[in-house]
């Protein structure tokens, strides 16, 4: 196996103001399925194209935003390995018991320089609906809504992006696929632990622990167009798009869930290999990097977060 250690984004736990509205949005519009509701009221969702127990966790709260981003490791001993690496780096690591989220094994957690909580785990039960593995059809259950195929990545905002870059490279073995440098230093980074152009990204922002968006992968540009039709039909608050990112080359729409958390539908994007050099952007071309067709940032990109 070529991919070792931290393998991919596994789940993200987000806070919602209105749980029934959030469930309707993520199941009927994004196209996910509800797996279960936990005893503490958290709701667990997945795409029918994902095998693992869940990928999206909704927690009812008085403020919107993100609680934690979870990454799945290849094997259980990876958790011990990264606990040592993170501790040696100088950050405190805590432990979450198996079953704290239904279907998931033990997790380790720590806070990164931008103020976000990152968790690692290795074990997940599978849940239905999921793809068949013998003579599989392209889908087992007919896709609905925007037909999201998986939770793809998140973009998080906080002050110390340089600190995150150093930590993710040195302690977690991520690589930086792309970065934006401003005259006063690194402004944004797109980090990968596998073969996607990004598995998590960070942009510099004065307040810590902010959520810019949670992204769902769609099949192609045609699917993005269908998602846009759904946004208008159901009067979902849109931010920007359909358009394309210069950075990652992904095709995209930004829009908001019923609690004001930004979501993205993402299709395409290039394949990353560990020998590919970091692509860099400067102040003069950052508009094209973020929104390739508009060639400038919109008002909300740097100021609207949850």
């Amino acid at each position, binding site marked *: 196996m070529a991919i070792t250690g931290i393998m991919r984004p596994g789940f993200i736990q987000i806070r919602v103001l209105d749980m029934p509205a959030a469930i309707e949005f993520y199941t009927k519009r994004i196209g996910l399925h509800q797996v279960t509701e936990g005893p503490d009221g958290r709701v667990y969702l997945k795409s029918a194209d994902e095998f693992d127990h869940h990928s999206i966790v909704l927690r009812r709260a008085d*403020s*919107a935003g993100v609680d934690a981003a979870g990454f799945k490791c290849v094997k259980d001993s990876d958790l011990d390995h990264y606990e040592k690496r993170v501790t040696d780096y100088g950050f405190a690591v805590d432990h979450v018991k198996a079953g704290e989220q239904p279907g998931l094994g033990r997790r380790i957690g720590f806070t990164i320089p931008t103020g976000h909580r990152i968790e690692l785990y290795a074990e997940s039960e599978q849940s239905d609906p999921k793809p068949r593995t013998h003579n599989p059809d392209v889908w087992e259950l007919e896709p609905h809504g925007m037909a999201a195929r998986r939770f793809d990545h998140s973009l998080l905002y906080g002050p110390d992006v340089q600190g995150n870059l150093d930590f993710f490279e040195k302690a977690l073995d991520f690589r930086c696929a792309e970065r934006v440098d401003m005259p006063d230093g690194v402004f944004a980074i797109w980090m990968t632990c596998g073969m996607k152009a990004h598995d998590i990204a960070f942009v510099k922002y004065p307040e810590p622990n902010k959520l810019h968006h949670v992204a769902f992968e769609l099949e192609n540009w045609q699917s993005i167009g269908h998602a846009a039709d759904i946004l208008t039909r159901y009067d979902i608050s849109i*931010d920007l798009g359909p358009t394309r990112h210069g950075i990652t080359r992904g095709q995209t729409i930004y829009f*908001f*869930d*019923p*609690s*004001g958390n*930004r979501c993205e539908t993402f299709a395409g994007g290039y394949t990353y290999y560990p020998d590919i050099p970091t692509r860099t952007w400067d102040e003069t071309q950052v508009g094209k990097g973020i929104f390739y067709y508009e060639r400038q940032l919109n008002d909300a990109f*740097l100021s609207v977060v949850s």
Partner: protein
Amino acid sequence: MAPQRFQVTLEGHGQANVYEGERVLVALERAQGFGQLKNLPRRLPVGCRRGGCGVCRVRVLAGAYDSGPMSRSCVSAEDEAAGLVLACCIYPRSDLFLRLETPVVVKAKGERALQPV
């Protein structure tokens, strides 16, 4: 039956029609599109439109309204009780008089995105 129509006045900027059950911010955005709002600092501060980001904060100077959930990291319970609310989360029950009190300056080209009030 057609929804009831109210008028929302944005202090110093103009007036807009707003309908029963409609988010006040959406009515203001429409009025901006029609060129009915004048002398805005830049443009109407619009973010997520769903109560999460706090960009569209207004003070209700007069009028009755219903409100939906808004993120407590943007509007405290005391703020909300005092009429400092998010325009995207209030729905008119009468004519309304509002003052923009956005917590951030919405970015114009070449400016910093976030500035303290």
